[in-house]
């Protein structure tokens, strides 16, 4: 069962609708004690870094997530801010992130964006899945995915970069470390490509 974590951030229902239409078993989970029922987890995110971390802390989800993802190696997919909180920290806020994947979240350097509009990076962009990972199987990279953000994940290690995109230079648009995945873009709002990615995540066999 895919557990979609509902901590007040958006897009939970959009993801639930996709899994429902795919006939894949899912559950929307709000309470930390129910997280353990899921075989895989999705951490959605629309919002600011600190507001998101604060909600994870206050709800008790943070501790339980650490236990399941780090201790029991439960696969997880973070989306947008759900990816960003996997880093140590962010230029957008003061709180510490979960620190699951080595890296920090930085603001795009506007001086490198030689055109208008500059920020946010918003709209449909192409991706380059540099690892040829199964998560991106069957995806039309040129059609790409929908993005809306001004901050991006700077990986310390190249091995954690799953996909890149270009906006005033190349940046990391998807990260992973074994069973932990994150996308800066919104697959739940990216039509067929997004549906395919959610299906791939459900199908992934990880050890």
């Amino acid at each position, binding site marked *: 069962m895919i557990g979609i974590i509902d901590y007040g951030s958006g897009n939970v229902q959009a993801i639930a*609708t996709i899994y429902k239409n795919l006939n894949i078993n899912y559950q929307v989970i709000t309470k930390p004690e129910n997280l353990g029922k899921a075989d895989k987890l999705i951490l959605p995110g629309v919002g600011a870094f600190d*507001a998101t971390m604060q909600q994870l802390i206050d709800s008790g989800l943070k501790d339980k997530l650490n236990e399941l993802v780090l201790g029991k190696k439960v696969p997880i997919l973070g989306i947008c801010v759900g990816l960003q909180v996997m880093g140590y920290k962010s230029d957008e806020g003061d709180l510490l992130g979960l620190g699951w994947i080595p890296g920090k979240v930085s603001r795009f350097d506007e001086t490198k964006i030689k055109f208008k509009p500059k*920020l946010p990076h*918003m709209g449909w962009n192409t991706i380059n899945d540099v690892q040829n990972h199964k998560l991106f199987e069957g995806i039309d990279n040129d059609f*790409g995915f929908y993005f809306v953000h*001004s901050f991006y994940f700077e990986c310390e290690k190249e091995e954690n970069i799953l996909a890149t995109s270009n906006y005033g230079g190349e940046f990391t648009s998807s990260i992973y470390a074994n069973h932990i995945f994150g996308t800066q873009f919104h697959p739940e709002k990216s039509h067929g490509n997004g549906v395919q990615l959610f299906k791939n995540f459900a199908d992934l066999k990880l050890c």
Partner: protein
Amino acid sequence: MLRSRIIPCLLIQNKGLVKTVNFKDPKYVGDPINAVKIFNEKEVDELMVLDIDATRENRGPNLEMIKNLADECRMPFCYGGGITTVEQAVKIISLGAEKVALSYSALNNISLCQEIGVIIGNQSVVVVIDVKKKKLFGGYDIYTHNGTKKSNWKLNDLISKLEEIGIGEIVINSIDNDGLMQGYDLPLVEAIREKCSMPITVIGGAGSIQHIKDLISKFKTIGAAAGSLFVFKGKYKAVLISYPNREERKPIY
């Protein structure tokens, strides 16, 4: 590469979809959920839904309707109409919209944009600016309440202020061109593009794919929104929802 966005803009009145001309004479064009289902199939870049009565009727957003729309949307969704508090904006994002659009409430109290941005992120805060050409001396006046009340803001001052506080996008809506399907007001867009570096979406006047092409070729990355173009067909304006498919869009971007 980041593409321009071609955005159907749906106007809501009495829970139904309508289309106006110069912000007047709303014509009923169908059911919003049905429209979203069709736009899902067409893989639209983004969808904008504006409740045009909420502010004028002095009421808040219809959260149940927004939830129903957001649940159905497989594309990014921006909602506007009647948002006056941080709580409402946060609620709308939690229901599954990517962005909230403010107009009167932002113009009336610009710090509301910042207060909302702290919680949902500035990238998700959109300000819609309805403008009308001045009758005598050139330039534009800003209107709110569905085109019925003139704002004291000067267009340039407002753009500078929004750029300074840092919002996600401005939507510039030409009341003069609304529903006429004669093309966008390109000089207006040009003036605003020079003034700021944030994303712009333009609405008001698109009557053909060529109009959208003209806008994108001039401004490169931009949001091209349209109402009539995607809900009407033919010179008698029969209601038919349409949108260019993936292949048809490639030469436009």
